[in-house]
């Protein structure tokens, strides 16, 4: 025991000097009997230019330093956060993968550094970010400003943003993410994570957020690395009842808290007042009538923590008490996969005052958007044409970059606004289609930024699927084979005709094989013999006609000799 205390003391003293690490678990009840579980692991340090780190993930820090990164946000999300049902999320993210980097340092090397950061981060998170090409990368001028301290003054040339709506999220992403934590998955709140429970949820979003902060007790601007995991569970699907516990929801209980963590807090926020439910264990502090907090570090020192909520009221709360101020949705309005369509975004303001929003929409280059068809109109309560109060537009370039459209809009009180733009799908080159081409392609979700009271909120809309006209993939292959064969035949013969030189070669120069030489020699001999005999014959013919019988006998002999030649 004494030894353990000394170890712990040594650890805590080492940590408190320059690095701080804390763990938080927020369990928030959502309407419709959903439970939002948010794990966040935060490390802060004032100086990262070191060889040794106690709690900061070295693999990540070396990437940040190598490529002069000031801010980095990565999220891998499956499912859609439903603002209209659940209210706003503090950890909102678009479906699929999202990667945002703010760079410091010189401007001219940013493209190169972006590629390297993407590759390195995809290596340490097992995400297919390397598939994010320039086709999916944008640098919006007005949106997505750095949330931490920056030397760039928010100049968009220093940032790169890429989205891949098709990114799959699974265990292989969780594993390396857990490795970035000082205690890994062996102790602390991360030990509650079990892949088979985690990926059986309605929504899950894994994130890595790095920013520069001015921290308390730091000598200069510090670094904050926050890893978050937001999940939405549906307890009735798990246990058949509204009650839940760590064991039923996560499949595990908290046995050890991470010894290097300065605090480990478990917060529970319910929709019903606390007296309407029974909570165990009882070692909690009450924050408000609907919120309690556990100091998990204290509790786990003497027992296992398994938070258990039993509801006296079996009724399921539906609907939010207060409607969210602003809701945004994006959809595609279209007839068939080859016809033109509209990208439509709808914004609904349910407050009694105007809300000014900043809207960002990325449209891939293969959807040819017609800027002149862009239309903003108020559809409810009355129909009225509106205008952007400011906008920034970057046109797409084929196979290079997408359209980036940003606009400032005022959504009038209690009204709905519709933004639409017409597009024509392009026919891609046959090898540019993804493997599952008939599935269609998702366009990046729209991002809406607005001020709600003091805080600035960011909403992500749906990323709708667009069907692209797809060719018959076996056809180009066949055509290619056929055409290549024809070209090979035509080209081959023309090539040989035009490049071959016809030269006469003397017979004597031709080298003959041994057998051929023998045959020619014999043939030559025979020819000679025959020529001699014929000469003789002619002579005898000339001389006398009486010796015919003899010559006949000669002929027989000849034929014999001929036969012997044949036999040879």
């Amino acid at each position: 025991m004494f030894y353990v205390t000394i170890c712990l003391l040594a650890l805590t003293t080492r940590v408190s000097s320059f690095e701080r690490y804390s763990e938080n678990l927020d369990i928030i009840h959502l309407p419709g009997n959903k439970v939002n579980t948010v794990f966040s692991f935060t490390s802060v340090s004032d100086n990262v230019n070191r060889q040794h780190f106690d709690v900061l993930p070295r693999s990540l820090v070396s990437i940040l330093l190598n490529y002069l990164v000031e801010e980095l946000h990565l999220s891998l999300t499956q499912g859609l956060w439903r603002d209209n049902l659940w209210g706003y999320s503090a950890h909102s993210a678009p479906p699929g993968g999202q990667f945002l980097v703010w760079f410091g340092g010189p401007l001219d090397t940013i493209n190169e550094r972006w590629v390297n950061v993407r590759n390195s981060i995809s290596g340490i998170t097992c995400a297919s970010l390397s598939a994010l090409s320039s086709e999916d990368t944008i640098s919006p001028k007005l949106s997505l400003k750095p949330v931490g301290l920056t030397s760039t003054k928010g100049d968009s040339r220093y940032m790169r943003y890429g989205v891949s709506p098709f990114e799959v999220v699974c265990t292989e992403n969780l594993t390396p993410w857990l490795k970035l934590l000082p205690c890994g998955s062996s102790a602390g709140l991360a030990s509650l994570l079990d892949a088979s429970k985690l990926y059986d949820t309605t929504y899950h979003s894994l994130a890595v957020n790095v920013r520069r902060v001015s921290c308390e007790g730091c000598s200069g601007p510090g670094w904050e690395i926050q890893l978050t995991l937001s999940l939405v569970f549906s307890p009735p699907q798990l246990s058949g009842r509204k009650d839940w516990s760590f064991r039923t929801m996560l499949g595990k209980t908290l046995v050890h808290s991470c010894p290097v963590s300065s605090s480990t807090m478990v917060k529970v926020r319910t929709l019903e007042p606390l007296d309407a439910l029974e909570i165990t264990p009882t070692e909690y502090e009450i924050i408000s009538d609907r919120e309690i907090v556990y100091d998990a570090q204290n509790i786990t020192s003497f027992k296992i923590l398994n938070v258990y909520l039993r509801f006296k009221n079996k009724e399921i709360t539906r609907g939010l008490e207060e409607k969210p101020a602003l809701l945004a949705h994006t959809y595609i309005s279209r007839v068939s996969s080859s016809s033109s369509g509209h990208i439509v975004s709808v914004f609904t303001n349910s407050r009694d005052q105007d809300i000014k929003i900043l809207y960002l929409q990325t449209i891939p280059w293969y959807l040819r958007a017609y800027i002149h068809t862009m239309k903003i109109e108020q559809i409810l309560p009355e129909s009225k044409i509106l205008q952007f109060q400011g906008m920034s537009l970057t046109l797409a370039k084929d196979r290079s970059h997408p359209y980036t459209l940003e606009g400032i809009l005022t959504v009038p009180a209690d009204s709905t606004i519709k933004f639409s733009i017409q597009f024509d799908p392009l026919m891609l080159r046959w090898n540019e289609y993804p493997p599952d081409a008939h599935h269609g392609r998702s366009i990046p979700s729209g991002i809406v930024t607005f001020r709600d009271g003091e805080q600035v909120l960011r909403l992500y809309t749906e990323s709708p699927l667009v069907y692209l006209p797809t060719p018959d993939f076996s056809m180009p292959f066949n055509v290619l084979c056929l055409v290549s064969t024809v070209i090979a035949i035509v080209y081959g013969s023309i090539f040989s005709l035009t490049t071959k030189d016809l030269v006469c070669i003397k017979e004597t120069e031709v080298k003959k094989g041994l057998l051929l030489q023998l045959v020619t020699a014999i043939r030559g001999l025979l020819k000679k013999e025959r020529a001699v005999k014929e000469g003789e014959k002619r002579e005898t013919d000339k001389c006398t006609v009486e010796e015919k019988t003899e010559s006949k006998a000669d002929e027989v002999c000849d034929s014999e000799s001929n036969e012997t030649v044949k036999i040879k």
Partner: protein
Amino acid sequence: MLPAICLLLLFCPLSAVHTNNWVVIADASRYWFNYRHAANALSIYYSVKRLGIPDSHIILMLSDDMACNPRNPTSAQVFNNRDRHVQIYPDDVEVDYRDSEVTVENFFRVLTDRLPEGTPSSKRLMSDENSNILVYLTGHGGDGFLKFQDTEEMNALELSDVFQQMHEKKRYNELFFMIDTCQAGSMVLPIKSPNIIGVGSSTVGQDSLSHHGDHEIGVYVIDRFTYFTLDFLEKVQPNSRATLNDLFRVYSTAEIRSTPQYSNFNLFKTRRPGDVLITDFFGSVRQTVLFDEQIAPLNRTVLANNLNPNEQNLDLQLDSVPQLPF
């Protein structure tokens, strides 16, 4: 005397001279109904990990996400047997190439290490002339090709060329190539590079069949050839003396319902399959060298200065900026 020793060395079965092990596993099939191919690949992944090859030395390529597929009733889990006693998608799984990243081009680039600059080391096959490499492929194939992602084909001759390149670039000491696909023999036969043993699940003209299905998952969960390979590997321990011949003996035509096709064993110059331990390819060599003297620690200050010369620039005038332009 010396020539006698040389001769003796020449004729004695040489013990393994490799110093490191690498594994490349690729499942080339997309779509849920090809679950068994992902399970085949993951079974081999599971075995090599169990026998001690670390994730950093395994390149795993999966064409589709089966574990977190919405159709999978057991989320984040993959099973290769209806008994479900082994979950082959472990919590520490590392998939290096997935979904549309699994292409013939990427596969060849990994083998020949012609990858774009900045590719993370986890996605690279960093083998050398002392490496023993296991290459395992599974998917749908035909006479002379293996289909990738249902859109492109890997030609058998291309593959044998790539192996030849690997040989010329001194990227392996010995290579064991396994392929489980229909007409797999056609992928094995063109291989002409030295020190490669290849085995395909079936000869040209034969189909490779699946072993059994799981009614709850709703699809076939493993192929016959891999099933019997795995059955054999399950009995192998890191210190096992089992050889490749023992493995080849389990491939009975009656059980796998196809005739396995081997490459020309004469290619394998130094040893006979009976001398090659299973763990030379499926296990990992971890030689520990003990030093008596203390090793001097690296000079920290030098490294810290080299770490990032531009670090001081980062701390210049950091301000917060407004989130909205209005």
